[in-house]
């Protein structure tokens, strides 16, 4: 189990390798990388995204990510997991977040990885402000679809957070 909140980019291959190296019980390794798109997330906006800046709540962020990760380990048989989330200014194409899970079982690795990113999206205290090519800066609004995705996992198991 590990979480990292950092300004700098990360090396996906090296991070994933570290999750299973030396552990012969790992049969499946699932990962998700979130990247900055150039499409606008602000409702109705037609402009392209030049960059975005991620602000977060130091202290609470780490606490929330650790709780989310611990919850995943309570629900699924995981051998290892990792959450890395960046903050600061990023341009389209840059990596924002990595979540990864290693398990003896494929299904557990997939579900736990999906759970991690869904819960992170609605619980980790990060906020995005987009700079668009019309010169504006706008706070991205939370999406109902993210709430719905997170709620799925609340229904499936008795775990609490």
């Amino acid at each position, binding site marked *: 189990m590990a979480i990292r909140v950092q300004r700098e980019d990360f090396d996906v291959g090296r991070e994933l390798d570290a999750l299973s190296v030396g552990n012969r019980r790992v049969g499946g390794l699932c990962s998700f990388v*979130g990247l900055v798109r150039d499409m606008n997330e602000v409702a109705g906006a037609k402009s392209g995204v030049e960059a975005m800046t*991620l*602000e*977060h*709540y130091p*202290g*609470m962020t780490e*606490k929330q990510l650790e709780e989310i990760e611990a919850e995943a380990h309570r629900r699924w048989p995981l051998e290892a997991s990792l959450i890395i*989330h960046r903050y600061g200014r990023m341009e389209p194409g840059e990596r*924002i*977040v990595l979540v990864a899970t290693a398990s003896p079982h494929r299904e557990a690795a997939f579900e736990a990885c999906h759970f991690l*990113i869904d819960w*992170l*999206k*609605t*619980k*980790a*205290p*990060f*906020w*995005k*402000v987009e700079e668009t090519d019309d010169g504006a800066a706008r*706070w*991205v*609004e*939370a999406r109902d679809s*993210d709430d719905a995705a997170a709620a799925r996992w609340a229904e499936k198991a008795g775990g609490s957070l």
Partner: protein
Amino acid sequence: MKLLYFAWLRQKIGVGEEAVEPPPEIADVRGLVEWLKGRGDGYAQAFRDLDSIKLAVNQEYAGLDHPIKAGDEVAFFPPVTGG
């Protein structure tokens, strides 16, 4: 008591962090918010629609009825948009 504001709340209020000493009769977050709204236009604007605001007491999510006391860290922010 330490107060933190994030994203557009920080922009409306004009500071990201401040130390305050609310009057002793203020016992929960709801009372704290009402008291803050009296401190200026920025606060009044930031706290106009409480349904659009999330908050945390000592870095855990909480509701408006959550009790507060001296030494607490209370944070206000919009729904999160990370990931």
